[in-house]
């Protein structure tokens, strides 16, 4: 009895306390409310929880979108391209042999926990992703820092990174939202996994809370070194279902949504909201398994490609919100060239070609989830292609799997044709074209190992940025197209819906959304 009374009074006191707090914060909120008709919260809805908020340990877009608002790297991409610009590093120098990079760091930058950002912090962050500290679940460590030999602290404001081999893409990698951002070393040493759930960076927004499956709340970092964020709170809400997300936008529950596809565009605009679209840095493709008896032959691959009307397919399946892919690289990535052409649609030629190759049955595998580069799902794409092949007398079987299982199945290699896609990490052409040279069959699902192509890749990686390097990549594309290793299908556009009251967001080609300049009017 006594105990319950005590408990009750405790609850009451707690309630009063909270009420008092709310009372105190109310006047503080008032000036914002009276300021010229803006709202102090920007709500952004995405389809899934972030995997975590430690940029070294995650690999998904949902995490990345939040991470870029909390953390910064040494470098960043320009607002409208993947051109590299200064961020936490003010300037840099690359040694003549291309193996050593020296960065001058910005002064007076503090992490959200009050600790200083300096050369030690940079070293700490890179070291944890290098052997022997690196763990297998740091998905991007080898991609971003794989060529790093060591990190040397010259002085608190200067740091030198030494590479083992020339890597032209390294600068672009340092601007990435995964692996590259700098985390407070204090937070990293505080306890296991705490950064995954309580991130501490230097960015324009500070982390407030994360209700799993519901939302992640950020608040403006008033001690930010640069231009302060315009809107006080940013909330990332998790709404899994596509249509539900649109409804939430229409019903003004949220200010901006992503992960939408053609099917809901009308609903967005008819509901009085706006559609943002921009070319996306991705490619959606079909690959032939070049190790099978059927498709080790280029003519056979060509014949199948000829049977598929990619133009019609992309129009119906993506309804104008994906562009037909004429090549692997998206149009704005260096090395893209209009002159690259894939095998053209020609059903009659396909029929004779397939007959000549003796192909009557094809086994495909496909993923059943929508992917950022293929909102319609791999299954829908596979089924459509099955339809085209049926018309030229080839029977296809499709085995579909959820994404996890699918990746395992791809690795097993038991297929004639498979579907995949790639989201560009850093805007460097190598990031795309290297896929066809990779030894790992879960990356290079065509399992294509062409010595000529591999040589071309190696050479281009060592060539410094410029027209010469771009031309090398164009040549690679032409080579791959002639061999018909992939059938590039489409580049998905970046799509977002937003309320007319929202302005100032930067939906970057990397798929990240920078919120610091967002203004929401009443």
């Amino acid at each position: 009895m006594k105990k319950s009374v005590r408990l009750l009074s405790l609850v009451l006191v707690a309630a009063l306390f909270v009420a008092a707090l709310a009372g105190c914060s109310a006047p503080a909120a008032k000036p914002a409310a009276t300021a010229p008709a803006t709202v102090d919260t920007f709500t952004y809805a995405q389809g899934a929880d972030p995997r975590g908020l430690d940029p070294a340990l995650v690999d998904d877009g949902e995490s990345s979108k939040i991470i870029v608002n909390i953390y910064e790297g040494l470098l960043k991409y320009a607002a409208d391209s993947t051109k590299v610009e200064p961020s936490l590093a003010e300037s840099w120098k690359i040694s003549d042999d291309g193996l050593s990079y020296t960065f001058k760091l910005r002064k007076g930058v503090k992490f959200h926990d009050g600790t200083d950002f300096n050369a030690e912090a940079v070293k700490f962050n890179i070291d944890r992703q290098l052997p022997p500290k690196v763990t297998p679940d740091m998905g991007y460590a080898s991609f971003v820092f794989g060529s790093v030999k060591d990190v040397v602290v010259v002085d608190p404001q200067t740091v030198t990174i030494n590479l083992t081999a020339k890597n032209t893409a390294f600068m672009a990698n340092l601007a990435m939202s995964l692996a590259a951002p700098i985390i407070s070393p204090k937070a990293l040493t505080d306890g296991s996994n705490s950064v995954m759930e309580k991130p501490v960076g230097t960015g324009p927004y500070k982390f407030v809370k994360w209700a799993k499956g519901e939302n992640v709340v950020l608040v403006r970092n008033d001690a930010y070194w640069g231009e302060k964020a315009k809107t006080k709170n940013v909330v990332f809400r998790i709404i899994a279902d596509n249509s539900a997300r649109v409804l939430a936008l229409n019903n003004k529950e949220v200010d901006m949504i992503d992960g939408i596809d053609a099917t809901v565009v009308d609903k967005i605009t008819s509901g009085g909201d706006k559609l943002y679209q921009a070319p996306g840095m991705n490619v959606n493709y079909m690959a032939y398994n070049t190790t099978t008896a059927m498709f080790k032959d280029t003519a056979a691959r060509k014949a199948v490609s000829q049977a598929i009307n990619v133009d019609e397919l992309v129009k119906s399946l993506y309804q104008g919100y994906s562009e037909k892919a004429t090549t692997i690289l998206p149009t704005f990535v260096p090395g893209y060239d209009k002159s690259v052409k894939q095998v053209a649609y020609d059903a009659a030629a396909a029929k004779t070609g397939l007959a000549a190759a003796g192909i009557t049955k094809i086994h495909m595998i496909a993923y059943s989830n929508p992917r950022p580069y293929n909102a319609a799902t791999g299954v829908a794409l596979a089924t459509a292609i099955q339809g085209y092949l049926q018309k030229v007398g080839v029977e296809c079987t499709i085995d579909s799997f959820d994404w996890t299982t699918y990746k395992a199945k791809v690795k097993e290699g038991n297929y004639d044709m498979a579907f995949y896609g790639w989201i560009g990490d850093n805007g460097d052409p190598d990031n795309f074209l290297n896929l066809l040279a990779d030894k790992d069959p879960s990356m290079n699902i065509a399992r294509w190992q062409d010595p000529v192509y591999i040589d071309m890749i190696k050479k281009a990686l060592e060539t410094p940025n410029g027209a010469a390097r771009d031309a090398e990549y164009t040549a690679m594309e032409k080579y791959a197209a002639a061999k018909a290793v992939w059938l590039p299908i489409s580049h998905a556009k970046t799509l977002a819906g937003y309320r007319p009251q929202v302005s100032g967001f930067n939906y970057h080609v990397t798929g990240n959304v920078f919120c610091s300049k967002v203004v929401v009017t009443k």
Partner: protein
Amino acid sequence: MTEFDYPQDTPRPDPSSLTHLADETMALGERLPSGDIPDFDETLHEKPENQWLEMWRSLIANRAALVSLIFIAFLVFLAVFGPLLTPYNPISTNMAASLRAPSAAHWFGTDQLGMDIFSRVIAGTRVSLTVGLLAVSIALTIGVILGAVAGYAGGWVDSVIMRLMDMMLAIPSILLAITLMAALGKGIDKAVIAIGLVSIPEYARIVRGNILSIKQNDYIAAARVVGNTDFRIIFRHILPNALSVIIVRATLGISSAVLDTAALGFLGLGVQPPQAEWGDMLGRARGFIFQAPWTLLYPGMAITVTVLAFNLLGDGLRDALDPKSRVK
């Protein structure tokens, strides 16, 4: 003795007044201790042939059950001959005609890949009924055997079997089915196994319960005395008596199997594409809620109506097989 039988589609009079009416059939001098209604006892002693006939009459006298029976016959017809009747090949795509609204050419419209929804809904009948029937058969066979053995043998055999059933029952069946499907992979054959396995405990329990009560009856003791084997006793004497309950349960089981299949399909764990399955169609149409609501409407209606029919039939069967429940 005159039987005082009320047609079951009209509810019985209140038992309190019925008592007196039923008593009217009693001869003088016979004193009924309480309000037992004599016809209940009679049905138990009726010969089986008679019982089936009686059941059939009773069933078709129930209008709702009759309609559902006719509808199920129609579904079976569609499942068997549907592919011959569909206006389009249910699995052939036509990218040039995707997401068309219902029209004379496509009665239920087309989906994203230009497949005819009407044809796919019809084709889906076969999948749903197949999964429903096969899954129930699996569950029924294993469940009846386990339940019979447990109930008849008793002792530790009973304990082991029933604890196993408890374990399965402790996990909600849809969760168990999803986990199974995730482990087994997609496909109609795997759906049959998953859904069949998870409903075993229901049948095992029913059969065991029935056997435990029937076991006490004199005629079982009599069968044992004349030297029948256990096996024979179970299959010749005990099971036929538990049959009516099992039949009702199995009919309702088909409806829940159809629902479970759809749920698996909806979550993307059902059939392999491009096979037409209602839940799978719904799951894929989720994104078209605004742009093409017809893609959602018809498969959902197909599921609901089919499940409704089996539920009605199950209710009708229960009423027909068990006179006591006619009151309800």
